């Protein structure tokens, strides 16, 4: 469960990215966080993975208060949360398989386990034939699939996807969303940050709308409304 208790985030230059956010996401939920550019959606995603710390309030993930998480504990948190970004964030000097196995190597997984898991997740995302390609030799959709595969290797309970379809064409975007829905069906909580109304309307699941750093609507099953 992810809980935001009166969370605010003010940057040193005075910009208010989040103001008194108060909501909870239940285990296994698929939640879309929507809003216009600069509304504060990405700040929420960044705070969940401790890339940003709140200036006020509490963020609790699975009973763990990460509001003032120590630098040494951040890697432990990130190994439990899968993250997908709009700009993919793949290691360009590593192949598809190496990018995925890297996420396991950082937590000291044995080679035997890595050799077993990597082909499995590549199969889930449909990239088993691109194992030895470098990211620059893949299409945008394929790169995003690699990112999702990397996010899945730890079998995370939470998957945060920040504008995962932002750089993709409509057909590929739908494929990625289908994949995220499939992952959600398997029990993973998915937090999707997007400003794409078409996608949100098609998913037809919970929608949290953010405007100027505050929650303007929070519907259990909803459409994209501003």
């Amino acid at each position: 469960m992810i809980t935001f208790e009166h969370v605010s985030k003010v940057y040193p230059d005075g910009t208010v990215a989040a103001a008194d956010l108060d909501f909870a996401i239940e285990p296994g939920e698929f939640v879309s966080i929507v809003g216009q550019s600069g509304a504060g959606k990405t700040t929420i995603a960044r705070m969940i993975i401790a890339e940003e710390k709140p200036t006020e309030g509490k963020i609790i993930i699975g009973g763990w208060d990460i509001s003032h998480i120590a630098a040494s504990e951040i890697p432990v948190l990130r190994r439990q949360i899968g993250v997908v970004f709009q700009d993919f964030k793949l290691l360009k000097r590593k192949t598809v398989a190496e990018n995925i196995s890297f996420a396991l190597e950082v937590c000291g997984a044995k080679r035997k386990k890595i050799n077993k898991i990597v082909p499995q997740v590549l199969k889930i995302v449909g990239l088993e034939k691109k194992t030895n390609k470098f990211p620059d030799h893949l299409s945008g959709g394929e790169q995003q699939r690699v990112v999702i595969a990397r996010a899945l290797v730890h079998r995370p309970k939470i998957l945060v996807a920040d504008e995962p379809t932002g750089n993709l064409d409509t057909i590929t975007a739908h494929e990625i969303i289908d994949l995220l829905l499939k992952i959600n069906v398997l029990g993973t909580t998915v937090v999707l940050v997007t400003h794409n109304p078409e996608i949100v309307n098609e998913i037809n699941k919970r929608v949290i709308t953010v405007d100027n750093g505050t929650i303007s609507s929070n519907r259990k099953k909803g459409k994209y409304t501003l």
Partner: protein
Amino acid sequence: MILALARATKFAIQNFWRNLWLSIITVFILVLTTMSITLVVGMNVIGQQIISAVEQKVDVDLYFYDNVSEEQILQAQKYTQTIEGVADVIYISKTDALAKFRESHKDDPSIIAALDELDENVLPASLTIRAKDIEKYPGIIEAFQKSNFNTLIDRTDYSDNQDIINGITQITQRAYQIGMGVSIIFVIIAIIVIFNTIRITIYSHREEVGIMKLVGATNWFVRGPFILESVLIGLISAFITTLLFGTLLYFSDATVRAFFSGYDFSIFVYFQKHLLSFVLAELAIGVVLSVVSSMVAINRHLKT
């Protein structure tokens, strides 16, 4: 721990190989850096060696009156050898002195003709004193002057040599000071150059560092490959510098020998004798410079 180290080593070699051009440029800059440090420090060392070779050439001659017997001179020689700081005392008889003089002026017919005109040998017998250290001469001369043998001496060339001795002592100290000063300036410039090169290299990987952290890598897991890559770059640079410097000394040895003819000094032989310490110094310079630079540079990108 072993698994992490093995993985860091694998990533380091992979990074080095997959970024070959950047690696080659970093190695090149590091070689230039270590070469310039080595050249300055090396010149300093060679300068010291040459000065000490010149010092060994300095001696003091004591010229005896014509009426002094050979027996008295030999007694004076025996006494002088007991004075502290004396390395060697050589007796040159009147006959030896004449032979030496003829030998050194054999290409000057007017001097040889003048010698032939003389009925007797006008050259005095002498003792040549060599000290263990150039700074010992004043003490040795003072001790000799206090002895009874001093009355047998017609003249010495000590006052002539004193200027040379003082000059060399001064040059030695000055050369050392200047050498050290220049070395320090060069070392500082070299450190700044290599630090910035490595900083740029790591800056080009900043996105990669961010991604590693996002997927849960600890700071040490991120640092490890970069540090080991720096060690690898340092090792390669040290090897190339040693090879280049050795080759340079090998080919310049004949010229340097010719320049310092008369002094027993070969820079290549000196290099061979000190090869191990040279290699260790190169390794220390190369590895320490690159590792410290990369540690400082990478820490900037490990904040989040």
